[in-house]
C-alpha cells in the first residue's frame, strides 16, 4: 500500500509546484498572449502610408504590448493575399492584420475574395484620414461645385486618377458620382504615387487622396483642394471646405486599424486593445507619427466594433442598392 501513497504524494507535490509556477508566471506577466512575438502584417507593398505607420508601430510597440512585434510586409491582390493569410492563422493574438475599410468593409461584400468580413474581429483603430478632392490650378473647375457643373455639361469627359478598384479614391469618387448624379471616368493607376503623377502631368483632371499624399502639393500650390470627405474640416488645411458644406454628402474616413482573426479569445483582444491604447498615448510614438504628417484617433475594441459595424452596413446600402 505504500506505493499508491507515494504516488499520491508525488502527484500532489508536483501539482503544487505546477500551480506555483503558473501563478508565478501570471504574476510576472499577467498576459493571455502566447509567449512568442506578434506578427504585424501590412497588406500592401512597402512604401505606402500603411507600411510607414506599421514601421513606427512595430519599432516602438514592444514596451507596451509586452511582446516583440515583427513587421511583415505582404503585398498582393490589393491586400487580399495578406488578409486571407491572417484570416487563416491561429487565432491567439500572434498574427494581426493592419486593416482598413477597403479590406475589412468594402471588398469582401462586393468581390469574390478568399476571406469573409466576419473572419476578423476588430482590436483597435489607430487613426483615420479623410480624402481630399484635388485638381490642378489649370483645370476649368476650381471648386467641387464647378467640377460637378463641368461634369454635367460634359458627361464622361472628366477623367480622374483612381487608385484600385474598390480602393479609397475609387470609393469616394463613386460616392460623389452617385450623390451628384454625374458621369466621370476613373483610371485605376494602382496607388497614390502614380495617381498624383498623372494628375500633375496633365493626363488626368482630378484625384482624391490621403492628406499625406496630396498635402505637400497643396502647400506648394501645384494642386488645389476642392473638398474634404469628413464631417469636419481637416486641421492642417482649414481653408478647404468639407464636401457636406458644399452640398455633397460624401463622408468617408479611411481608418487604419488592427484586426485579429475571428475566434481570438476576448481577453486576448482586450489585452491587445489596452496595449495599443498605451502605445498611442506615448509621447515618443506621437512625435514619430506627427513627423509622417499623421495623427491618432484611437478607438478601443468595443467602440471600434460599433463603428465598423455601422460602416459595413452603410457601404452595403450604398453599393448593393444599385
Amino acid at each position, binding site marked *: 500500500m505504500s506505493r499508491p501513497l507515494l504516488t499520491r504524494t508525488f502527484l500532489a507535490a508536483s501539482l503544487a509546484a505546477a500551480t506555483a509556477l503558473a501563478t508565478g508566471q501570471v504574476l510576472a506577466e499577467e498576459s493571455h498572449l502566447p509567449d512568442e512575438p506578434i506578427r504585424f502584417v501590412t497588406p500592401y*507593398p*512597402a*512604401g*505606402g502610408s500603411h*507600411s*510607414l505607420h506599421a*514601421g*513606427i508601430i*512595430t*519599432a516602438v510597440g514592444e514596451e507596451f504590448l509586452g511582446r516583440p512585434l515583427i*513587421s*511583415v*510586409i*505582404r*503585398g*498582393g*491582390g*490589393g491586400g*487580399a*493575399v495578406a488578409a*486571407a*493569410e491572417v484570416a*487563416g492563422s491561429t487565432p491567439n493574438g500572434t498574427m494581426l492584420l493592419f486593416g482598413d475599410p477597403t479590406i475589412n468593409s468594402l*471588398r469582401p461584400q462586393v*468581390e*469574390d475574395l*478568399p476571406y469573409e468580413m466576419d473572419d476578423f474581429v476588430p482590436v483597435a483603430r489607430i487613426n483615420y484620414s479623410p480624402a481630399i478632392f484635388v485638381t490642378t490650378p489649370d483645370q476649368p473647375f476650381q471648386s467641387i461645385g464647378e467640377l460637378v457643373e463641368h461634369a454635367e455639361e460634359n458627361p*464622361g469627359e472628366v*477623367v480622374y486618377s483612381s487608385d*484600385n*478598384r*474598390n480602393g479609397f479614391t475609387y470609393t469616394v469618387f463613386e460616392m460623389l458620382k452617385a450623390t451628384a448624379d454625374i458621369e466621370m*471616368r*476613373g*483610371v*485605376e*493607376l*494602382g496607388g497614390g*504615387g*502614380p495617381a*498624383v*503623377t*498623372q494628375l*500633375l*502631368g*496633365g*493626363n*488626368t483632371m482630378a484625384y482624391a487622396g490621403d492628406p*499625406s499624399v496630396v*498635402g*505637400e*502639393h497643396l*502647400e*506648394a500650390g*501645384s494642386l488645389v483642394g476642392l473638398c474634404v470627405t469628413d464631417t469636419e474640416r481637416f486641421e492642417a488645411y482649414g481653408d478647404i471646405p468639407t464636401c457636406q458644406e458644399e452640398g455633397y454628402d460624401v463622408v468617408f474616413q479611411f481608418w487604419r486599424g488592427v484586426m485579429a482573426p475571428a475566434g481570438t479569445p476576448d481577453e486576448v483582444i482586450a489585452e491587445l486593445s489596452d496595449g495599443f491604447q498605451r502605445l498611442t498615448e506615448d509621447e515618443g510614438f506621437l512625435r*514619430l507619427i506627427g*513627423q*509622417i*504628417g499623421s495623427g491618432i484617433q484611437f478607438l478601443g475594441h468595443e467602440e471600434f466594433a460599433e463603428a465598423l459595424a455601422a460602416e459595413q452596413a452603410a457601404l452595403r446600402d450604398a453599393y448593393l442598392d444599385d
Partner: protein
Amino acid sequence: MIDLAVLQQGLAMLASPWTFLALSAGLAGGILIGALPGLTATMAVAVLAPFTFFMEATIGIPFLLGIYKGAIYGGSIPAILVNTPGTAAAAATARDGYALTQQGKSRKALELSLYSSVVADFLATLVLIMVAIPLASIAIRFGSPEFALLYLIALTMIATVSGESFLKGLIAAGLGLLVASIGLDPMSGYQRFTFGNTDLLGGVSLIPLLIGMFALSEILMQLTHPPERTNDAGQAVEHGGERLKWAEFWALRPTILRSTSLGTFLGSLPGLGAEIACWIAYGLARGRSREPERFGKGSLEGLAAAESGNNAVVPAALIPMTVFGIPGDTITAVLIGALMAQGMMPGPLLIQQNPGFLFGLFLVLLVTNVLLLIFGLAAIRWLKQVTRIPPTVLYPCVLLLCLCGAYAVNSSTFDLLILVVGGGLGYVMRRTHFPIAPLIIGLLLGPGFESAVRQSLVFSNGSLAIFWSRPGSLILLILLALVILTMAWRGLVKAGVIRKRSKSHPTKSNNI
C-alpha cells in the same frame, strides 16, 4: 549661383565622421544583401528604414542610400560567379558575365562590372545634380500611352536575346507573359488563373521564380552535365584569370555612355526600374555592336551595357523624388517614407526649405561611388577565389542560400514551391535549347505593359488614336517602327543573301 551657406552646410554633412561611417556600413551591407539571391534592395531598405527614424537625418538617410546603391551593384556578383542574379536587375548581367566566368575570366568580368557600375552611377548622379528639374518636367508628361509604347520597345528586345531560334524565343516570351497574367486583374480585380489558390492571388512571385530559373536550373545542369574540367595542374595564370586591361575598358566607352544615358532617362520616368533598363541597354548594345554574335557568349560589351544600364537608374530614380516628391521606383518610395519620418518632405518644398541637406545628399551620392570602387576592388580580391571552390561544395551552399532568399521575399512557403517549379522549368528549357531570357523579359514587362495599355484605353474611351495623337507617343511610335524595321532589314539582308544565290533562276522564270 549656389548659395555659399548651402555649400557649407552640404560639405559639413559630408565631413561628419558619422555620416561617413553610416554610409560605409550601408554600402558594405548593401553589397552583401544584393549578393545574396532573394534579399533585395527594396526589402533591405524597407526593413531597415524604421530604425533610421531614431537617427539623425544626416546619418540615417546616407545609410539607406548606401544600402540601395550597394545592393544594386552586389546583385551582379553572384550573376557573374554562379549564374544566379542577386537581384532582378542583374538578370541581363548573368548572360555574358557567367559566360566569361566559364571561360576562366571571372576576374575580368567582376572588374568590368564594377567599373561600368561606378562610371554609370557617377555620370547619372551628375545628371541628377545638373538637370534634374528640366528632365523631370519632361518625364512627368509621360502618361500611360507613352509607357505602353516604351514597354513595347522593351519587348522587341526579345528578338536580340533569343539566340539561334527566334521562334523558340517568342514561345518563351509568350510563356513569360502568360505566367505574368496570373493573379488579380490589375483593373477589375477579377481572379485570373488562380484556380482558387489564395497564394496565387498576388501573382507568381518574381524573385523566387527568377532564382529557380537561373540558380536551381544551373545546379541541375551541373549535376547532369558537369563541364569538363581543364586539368592543367601547372596553372601559370593567377586564379580568376587576368585583370581587365585599360585598353579593353577604354574601347567600351561608347557602349557605357549609351547605356548610361538610356538608364538615366528610363530611371527618371516614375515607375520604370533597373530591371527594364538593363535589358533595353543590352539589346541596344547588341544592335550597335560590330560583333553581335558574341553576345551571350562572354561579350565584354554586353556585360558593360547591362551593368551601366541598371546602375544609372539608381541616381536617376531620385530625380522624380527630389523634384516632385513622387517615387521613381519601390525603393525610392521607401526612401520618401524615411525622409518624411525625419520631418523632411521630399519634393519642391525640400529644395526651397532645406537646400543644404539636399546638396549634402548629392555630395554623399558622389562620394558613395568612390567608396563603391574601393569596396568593390577589395571584394574582388576575395571573390575571384570563388571559382576555386569545388562545385560539390559551392553549389549546395548556393542552393541553401537560394532557398532562404526565396522564402525571405514574402515569408511564404508557397514561394519555395515556385522556386522548385521555376528550377524544373529552367532545366527543361535549357535541355531543349529554349532561351530563358525572353521568358524573364515577358515576366518582368507583362504586368506593366498590360496596365499601361488598359489605362490608355480608358483615357481615350477605347480609341487606339491615343497612341499617335500625343506628341510623346508619336515620337515613341516612330522609334518603335524604326527598331522593328531595322531588325527586319537586318534579318532580310542575312536571309536575302542566301535567297539571291539559290533562287536567282526561278525568280527570272516567274517574271515572264
